[in-house]
């Protein structure tokens, strides 16, 4: 037989095989060390890379661990946790994405080249890591009543609290279409972690950093389960793509599969209303799975919200956790969730797992 047929046959086999089983090979990203990096000018960078040969000799006696981990005495504990968090977030996002207050200088474009530059700077490690000591003290999160996944700056003083920020609208005399005056609303000021008095101002004293380090291991275990659901999602996605998305006719339009971004939008929307502040510590250890049916306009049908299963805590705690989850779904769904109408069939029924493990005393 010709080589052409052989090659074609093998290629088809491989294609089908990858289509079916490819998802299984997806693995966690290798954990990478995130180094403290500051913005440097091109000249400085050239100067550093130019003198590369010399440090190689000097680098040996230095214990790499002592240098690569930011020294808690000179650097603020917050940044360490921040850096550790990034591997846990959804993978395709560049690591610079969750850029809350503590890293103001990474805001403009440089972040991506900076973090990509980090691996190539591995060799002149000693020089790069000495930089952190020159970074100005990072703005500390103040103790604030509200703790949310994304920190929010203090709102204008007369803004009423609301999830969505809307500016104050005053009727303008000469306007063509009169607008109703509405009061300014803004999300309430929020910090992204609980700040205890013992954590405050660690820069002035050697910090009682016994608070910070134990938090790290608690953040670790998440990636495996994330990748598992990511795996099954990827298999679904790949298979439906391979078949050209021709699903059997369903009563509701399913359309193309929901993108990660759309699912994320729903997840974040519910998260903003999921208030665990008033949950008992037993309820904070209980994971609940809640089912809900949605109307085509994206609003949850309150009557259909039901507890499907719970784990990790006693029944009373599960009830509390379920109540908080239900409040979250209803409150943020009052105006309807931002879900694509043409994919209604896919999100008509939703099962949400509320796992408070990461919310326990950050």
């Amino acid at each position: 037989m010709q080589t052409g047929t052989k090659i074609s046959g093998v290629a088809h086999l491989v294609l089908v095989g990858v289509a079916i089983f490819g998802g299984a090979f997806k693995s966690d990203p290798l954990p990478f060390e995130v180094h403290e990096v500051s913005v440097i000018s091109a000249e400085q960078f050239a100067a550093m890379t130019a003198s590369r040969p010399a440090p190689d000799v000097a680098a040996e006696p230095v214990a790499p661990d002592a240098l690569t981990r930011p020294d808690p005495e000179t650097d603020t504990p917050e940044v360490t946790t921040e850096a550790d968090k990034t591997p846990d977030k959804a993978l395709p996002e560049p690591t610079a994405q969750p850029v809350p207050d503590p890293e103001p200088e990474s805001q403009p474009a440089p972040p991506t080249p900076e973090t990509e530059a980090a691996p190539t700077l591995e060799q002149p490690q000693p020089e790069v890591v000495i930089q952190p000591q020159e970074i100005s003290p990072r703005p500390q999160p103040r103790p604030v009543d509200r703790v949310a996944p994304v920190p929010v700056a203090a709102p204008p003083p007369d803004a009423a609290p609301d999830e969505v920020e809307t500016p104050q609208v005053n009727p303008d005399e000469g306007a063509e279409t009169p607008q109703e005056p509405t009061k300014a609303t803004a999300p309430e000021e929020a910090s992204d972690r609980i700040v205890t008095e013992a954590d405050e101002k660690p820069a002035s004293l050697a910090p009682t950093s016994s608070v910070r380090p134990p938090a790290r291991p608690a953040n670790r275990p998440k990636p495996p389960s994330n990748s598992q659901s990511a795996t099954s999602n990827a298999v679904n996605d790949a298979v439906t793509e391979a078949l050209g998305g021709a699903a059997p006719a369903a009563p509701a339009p399913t359309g193309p599969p929901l993108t990660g971004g759309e699912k994320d939008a729903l997840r974040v929307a519910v998260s903003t209303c999921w208030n665990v502040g008033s949950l008992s510590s037993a309820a904070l250890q209980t994971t609940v799975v809640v089912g809900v049916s949605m109307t085509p306009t994206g609003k949850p049908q309150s009557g259909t919200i039901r507890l499907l299963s719970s784990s990790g805590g006693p029944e009373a705690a599960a009830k509390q956790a379920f109540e908080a989850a239900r409040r979250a779904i209803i409150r943020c769904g009052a105006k309807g969730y931002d879900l694509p109408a043409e994919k209604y069939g896919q999100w008509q029924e939703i099962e949400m797992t509320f796992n408070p493990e990461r919310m326990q005393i950050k």
Partner: protein
Amino acid sequence: MIRLLCCILAALVAAVPLVIQPALAQQGPLRIEITEGVIEPLPFAVPGFVPDNTAATDYGKQLSQVIAADLSGTGLFREIPASAFISPITDFAAPVKYADWKAINAQALIAGAVTVSGSKLTVRFRVYDVFSGAELGNGLQFTGNTDGWRRMAHKVADAVYSRITGEGGYFDSRVAFVSEAGPKNDRRKRLAIMDYDGANVQYLSDSSTIVLAPRFSPTGDRLLYTSYETGFPRIYVLDVGKVKRRALDNTEGTMSFAPRFAPDGKTVVFSLAQGGNTDLYTMGVSSGKRTRLTSAPSIETAPSFSPDGRQIVFESDRSGSQQLYIMPTGGGEARRISFGKGRYGTPVWSPRGDLIAFTKQSKGRFHIGVMRLDGSQERLLTASFLDEGPTWAPNGRVIMFTRETQGASGRASLYSVDITGRNLRPVRTPDGASDPSWSPLQQ
């Protein structure tokens, strides 16, 4: 060869639909996982309780004020002021206009009514989950003396708090403490007791002798404390109701201090100092029979029982610096549980049995902290010039302690903090105050 390849290919293609079918069937409900939420005070509204008769008019407003203060004081709730209400509640039995409360973002609504007849006060209340549009739990009614109206308000607040958070309540409780007056080198100290929120302060001793560290019995009817009335520190037990006291130990040539009740209320553990050595002893309250628990040449003090009475946590400097140890109540091998850098003292076992609160000194600062029973997950909740002597609220969620300020005009006062480290706030007392002890929930 070609046939083989073709067969394999065909088989795979045929198998694909088999794989697809279950995959498509899996595409039933959309599944998402929420792992991050917010921690914010839950907004609630408690309109004035509806008075059922004119005698009850004042009480209606006062009750709702105490309830609101209790809930807001936890840091977990935020009161929506009455000025923001759209429709007031004028009839306890009328259905609730949920839309009006949703509009002002009240997530919980507490409605109540109060009746007064003679010296009898009756309070009824209901809790509503506004966004679910339904009542949360059942309505409840409390009856009591008009003098005890604050306690009833606390009981209502406890019920609301428990229903929403799932935690046990702690508002209907009292705190015993030492009231301090005068300059730092001539402090007048006397025993005092008050409601946990600072109301109804009563003095239980005069300031003629130094008194220290009162501690409640498990039923809240007695106090153990240390007094210098004989010229030496000795432990006494005081009946709170009758304000009658009795020395528990008066052995010549010794000093006793740091007493605590066992959970059965019949035994007391304390420190006895003599001959340059301080050790732990237990004693029957009625029998007076003493049993020695430790005999190390170091200072062993500040003992505290576990809620099941089987273990005692205490501090000792046998290792060269003050550290925390746990040993069986009958005496025996003590195991160390504190390992951080610094000195650890005044350990107190949580009423939930899961944590030990303590005072830690490190680098010239004092902290109140908590740790698990094996010493892991140590967390510091406060930091200042001098914080010490934590005591647990009955639900094991809040800690009260003494904070003293620096310098010649330094003054002691009481503070409370949530176990997460949030909501650090002062407790108001008429004068300086120290050594708080939280009573159990009153019945």
